[in-house]
């Protein structure tokens, strides 16, 4: 994919008179800048929908609730029209999602991105090779060629967006952002569903405001995977929690920051930087299988949290299996953790209000 002709493209909702088409995805490992460089809009299919539940009958009820809701949304068409869907081979449930979509939406190309299980050099090269294949597929759908200058601009744009969100998150953690964590979640959701060029500009408006607000609530660190409901964050705050940072796929890990901040001149560099950013729990560090618990404890300490709330999609094995060692490590260091399993609806969390309140009260009183 080197030495290709640079296709001059503008940005915005319409280019050359053609509407910008969306490419759907549901995993933070999807290379957003690559999709954007082909003049598509990456559209994260968040599990926020009132669509009729169909996944259970097509697949099985006891499958990750995130995947089931994404399936339901796509099958019911509850989103902008998608030119294709990038499916990341991250876990069993995602593979079944791809199977279900191929059956129920044969009109929707499903582009599979193989995600290595660990982050060693050979795995990163393999990921780079797969990104090259994805680029070819996007090229065919968009009838365009990859321009590395455009890729560089897209990488810079997304890196800048990630930095802006990180800055706003820090302000929210320290009570310097109106709307706090719930508003942050709204911004995260918009970051991956709206046109990135215009949204990134809108973030500047928020950055210009730095309004101190009263710090209320017991500081807690949120961990887990999918928690896109702004109302869920508000629920935590209503229960007396003050989120101070998070390690969530739909939060601070939503837009991966390229480790090589000077950009990438090859797809290998891009893949390396992208894959090496914040790890999803499903990715193994062979040299340090205990990295996750240590990393979370470090973040809890950095953010001054008094406790941890773990929110995981029900039936998500990669996350649920990794919670007990995290809890044990946190407890050894005097940090309590509350585990909530959700089905990506607010109803399931609402039923746990009493538990959340009791937990917040307990850690709030602890010395």
């Amino acid at each position, binding site marked *: 994919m080197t030495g290709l002709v640079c296709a001059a493209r503008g940005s915005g909702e319409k280019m050359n008179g053609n509407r910008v088409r969306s490419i759907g995805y549901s995993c933070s490992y999807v290379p957003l800048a690559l999709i954007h460089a082909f003049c598509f809009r990456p559209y994260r299919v968040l599990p926020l929908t009132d669509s009729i539940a169909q996944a259970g*009958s*097509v*697949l*099985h009820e*006891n*499958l*990750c609730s995130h995947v089931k809701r994404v399936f339901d949304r796509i099958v019911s068409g509850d989103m902008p029209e998608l030119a294709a869907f990038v499916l990341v*081979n991250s*876990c*069993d*449930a995602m*593979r*079944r999602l*791809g*199977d*279900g979509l*191929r*059956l129920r939406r044969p009109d929707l190309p499903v582009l*599979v991105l*193989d995600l*290595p*299980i*660990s982050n*060693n050099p*050979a*795995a990163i090269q*393999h990921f780079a*090779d797969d990104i090259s294949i994805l680029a070819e597929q996007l090229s065919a759908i968009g009838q365009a060629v990859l321009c590395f200058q455009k890729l560089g601009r897209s990488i810079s744009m997304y890196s800048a967006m990630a930095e802006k969100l990180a800055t706003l998150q820090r302000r929210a953690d320290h009570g310097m952002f109106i709307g706090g964590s719930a508003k942050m979640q709204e911004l995260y959701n918009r970051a991956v569903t709206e046109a990135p060029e215009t949204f990134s500009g809108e973030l500047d408006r928020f950055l210009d405001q730095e309004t101190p607000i009263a710090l209320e609530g017991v500081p807690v660190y949120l961990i887990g995977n999918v928690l896109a409901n702004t109302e869920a964050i508000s629920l935590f705050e209503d229960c007396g929690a003050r989120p101070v940072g998070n390690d969530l796929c739909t939060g601070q890990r939503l837009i991966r920051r390229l480790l090589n901040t000077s950009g990438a001149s090859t797809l290998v560099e891009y893949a390396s930087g992208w894959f090496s950013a914040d790890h999803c729990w*499903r990715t*193994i560090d*062979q040299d340090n*299988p*205990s990295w996750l618990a240590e990393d979370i404890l470090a973040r809890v300490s950095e953010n001054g949290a008094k406790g941890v709330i773990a929110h995981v999609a029900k*039936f998500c*094995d*990669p996350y*649920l*299996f*990794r*919670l*007990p*060692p995290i*809890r044990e490590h946190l407890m050894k260091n005097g940090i309590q953790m509350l*585990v909530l*399993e959700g089905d990506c609806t607010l109803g399931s969390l609402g039923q746990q209000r009493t538990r959340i309140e009791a937990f917040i009260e307990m850690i709030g009183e602890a010395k």
Partner: protein
Amino acid sequence: MNIQDYFNATVAGIEAKLSLEPNLPNPRKKYALNVARLGQRLYDPEQTIAWCGVSVPFDLLNAMGITSCFVEFIGAMLASTGMSGPFLETAEQSGFPADACGYHRAVIGATRASLMPKPDVLVASSCPCSASVATIEYLAKHFAKPLFALHIPYERTERNRDFLATQLEEMVLFVAKITGHALDSGALNEAVRLTNAIREVILDIYRLASQTPSPLKTSDLANFGIVMGLFAGTIEGLCMAESFRDEFISRRKAMSGDEGGLRLLWVQSRIQFKHNLFDLFENKYKATIVIDELNDIPWEPIDQNDPYRGFAERILTIPFNGSIEIRIKRLLELADIYKIDGVINPCHFGCRQGTGARGLIEDSFKKRDLPVLNLEVDCIDQRNFSEGQLKTRLEAFLELLTNRH
């Protein structure tokens, strides 16, 4: 009785029985004996032990003189002896999800109860499932032992085969460095030769099983395909396979040809704990499981001159890898080859990769006008097993098949 004592007692008991009938094939006894001996080795502190994922090529590790096994083996053994309950509870009380696969919950519970043999090295494989990866990672942390992660690429392409082959070479070097057991080229050649020889014999077994009438009984090949993988590249594996083949040849010769009956396909893994569901099969309905999905050889012989690519190709052909279309295509082929009347899918509770495709598998068989019974049973955890209810459903299914036959 703990599981180590169980294996010792089993070995002694079977050896005694076999000594009484030395000239008979006795395939199932020999199979059970070899499995029990493997269990003994796993608990032998003198052995070098590797805990692995199901897709790891055990022929390579056997050739290195390492006692290796997939972790789910312990879960299955605990269930078969009726001992899984307390360990499942231990895992759940420790915070592991109660609705996750029982194989892995049992292994984690056994680990926390200090019952799991301590490994020297661990090799996780991304296929067939995420829970296996997480379980092996947990064991690596618990035992503070080195871990190698084998990524099985999603699609079966030359590039992916080569990537996997490279990983297998790295795996061998990694394991050799940790354990001091290098892979001798002569041992590798012999392991490949035996693997291919075993493959031929197993194909004979499956050909015999597919005949009409089939010489099989329902219990004959339970867990056969997946357990034989543990003996890949070994003389024990070849002897076991030959004894099954010889037994089935002998039975086939003795058959009149009038023996009819319902022919069933069993999806994925068997129920591991003791139960009486299959009493209905042969006693009342003359029904036999003639093919288990996992009793299949979708791979070509390993190239002696290029073994790593051969092993990689073999791993990529596992139907649980890749899209469900591949798996369904093979299931439908098996249904044709074995002339199936009906399909039973246990829908092992908590199995995201396998049971997650329940609806798609069922639809595919329905389009072929093949009835499917989804049991929705936990193959390891018998605490909530309702034998009466399942028997009723099974009976109705077999009745349906009988009327159609």
